[in-house]
């Protein structure tokens, strides 16, 4: 069953056709990679999915419900979480506080005037956040100022924040960019493990082919705003059009 159905999406920025009649189906409980050269429109597509951009034409259905026209927070509450290309975290807060916020959003919804009870009494939230930090191998950094961490750590924190919401669809925009090799491998292992433990669909944009081929079950190649091919990783590897448009480029 498709959890996500994207139909005939067009998006123009001035004279630039950033998305050119994009159709994309993502099957529930799979890992679907979207690859393509710089400027292909991959991040723009994610922006449409999470309500950051309104497309000129087309429709986006998530689990049978239309996504277009909803506010980003509503789309997230439907079960779509996104990790951004440049880490988006709460820089002024501690790592633990960063992790607690999505836990509150999951438990209390989009707004709750919970102004009197102290945070220290919210045992369920603290426990969940601590647990997630341990899963991310970040427990020792829990009292650190989030802005003071390395780019790779910020990204891992952001992934953990999204995972703690237990989303049905996780969108990852180059999740391992800026990470050391060891952390990249840890992240691959973590995503594999999450995938085994629970029902989750992952759409991942990635330039690192090692990451793509270790995780993806389907791959869509996007170039100049249009999907070129969609196939299994084995077939994509040998596809002449893909080599030409994308893989050839990175091999240089």
């Amino acid at each position, binding site marked *: 069953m498709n959890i996500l159905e994207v139909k005939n999406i067009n998006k123009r920025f001035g004279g630039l056709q950033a998305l050119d009649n994009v159709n994309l189906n993502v099957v529930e409980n799979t890992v679907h990679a979207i690859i393509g050269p710089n400027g292909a429109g991959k991040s723009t597509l994610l922006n449409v999915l999470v309500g950051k951009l309104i497309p000129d034409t087309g429709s986006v259905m998530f689990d049978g419900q239309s996504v277009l026209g909803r506010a980003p927070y509503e789309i997230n509450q439907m079960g779509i*979480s996104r990790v951004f290309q440049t880490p*988006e975290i709460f820089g002024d807060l501690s790592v633990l506080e960063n992790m607690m916020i999505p836990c509150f959003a999951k438990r209390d919804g989009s707004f709750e005037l919970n*102004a009197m009870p102290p945070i220290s009494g919210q045992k369920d939230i603290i426990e969940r956040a601590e647990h997630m930090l341990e899963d991310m191998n970040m427990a020792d950094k829990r009292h650190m100022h989030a802005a003071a961490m390395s780019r790779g750590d910020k990204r891992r924190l952001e992934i953990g924040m999204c995972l703690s919401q237990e989303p049905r669809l996780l969108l990852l925009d180059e999740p391992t960019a800026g990470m050391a090799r060891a952390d990249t491998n840890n992240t691959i292992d973590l995503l594999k493990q999450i995938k085994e433990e629970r029902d989750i669909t992952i759409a991942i944009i990635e330039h690192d082919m090692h990451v793509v081929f270790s995780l993806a079950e389907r791959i869509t190649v996007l170039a100049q705003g249009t999907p070129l091919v969609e196939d299994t990783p084995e077939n994509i590897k040998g596809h002449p059009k893909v080599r030409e448009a994308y893989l050839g480029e990175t091999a240089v």
Partner: protein
Amino acid sequence: MFNMEKRDKKLLIIIAVLALLAPFALNPFPTDSAMAQFNAGYPDLMQRFVIFGIFAIGFNILFGLTGYLSFGHAAFLGVGSYSAVWMFKLLSMNVVPAIFLSVIVAGLFSLVVGYISLRRSGIYFSILTLALAEMSFRLAYSVLTPITNGETGLQVYTNDPQILMGPDSPTVTHLFGLEMRSSYTLDIAGWSFDFAVGYYLSAIIMVAAFYLSIRIFRSPFGLMLRAVKSNQQRMNYTGLNTRPYALAAFVISGMYAGLAGGLLASMDPLAGAERMQWTASGEVVLMTILGGAGTLIGPIVGAGFIKYFENIFSKINNSVLHEWFGFLPDGLENGVIWVLEHFVGSGWHLTLGLLFMLIVTFLPGGLVEGGQRIAKRLRRKGADDDDAPGNKTPAE
């Protein structure tokens, strides 16, 4: 007991004790010593300290936590004062209904202003609040004169309805018979200490307001407000609607402002539109930044600091300066006084401006940061002397 961390409890107790002992603490100099003019322990000024403390504590919940800088909060204070005086005119001189209504009306008014101005953020938000507050100020002088009594100011007249007034109810503001202006003066040797009902009522309410603000700071709601300041984008994509969070903070701070306005009117049942002017809105911004925005105790410190300057520095005039520098040769004396007179008396704003510049430049965290630095240095010194390992808990 109060469901608080130890550190916060300590802070609350310190503030409560200081408020209780203020009549002593602020009058350190004997009444007829030369330094007596630096005494601030008279009821009128002490009331201002705590009432503007309430105003700044509330403002800090908006500005310190969410980062939204409102330049119109004096409008809520003004509305609070008008509401309170209307209660005196319609019901009786009891301050309870007056204070109650001032909080409610200011809350409703800030809901409207906040709803409109929070559609934008950053500088546009600030300008919108400024514009709306100036509009209210102008309206109070023109269209709304039947409610505000225009330039004369709203006050209580003997032919007002005052439907709850009994034949022997007090004709001055009171708390169930306890008159606000009544006070007890304690003379010890050369010192004189005043304990006024009005001050203690304001001080108790200030301590309660401070306690509430600690609770808000430490709550999940407080965490969300800090998240609004840090990264609204991340909040939105984490399923949180930032608008009602910011609006709730705006309304809470508006209610604090209304409470302060109601208390001002309860001490002196007179309300004028000048309380709503943009300079008054700017003052609470200064108080919060000077003391330390986003810290618990900063706004109180800032409010006290500015009100002390406004009332004490502004009283130093030429004849006082001549007294101080009389020992210098005439020419030099006149020279020194010619320089200094620009910084005291009506020139106190200049001194305040200079201090503000210095503090913001060298202590971005305000006076609270200054205090923390000094405390840390002292602690380190103490640790060195004892040859003990330094205390590593971060100060807050």
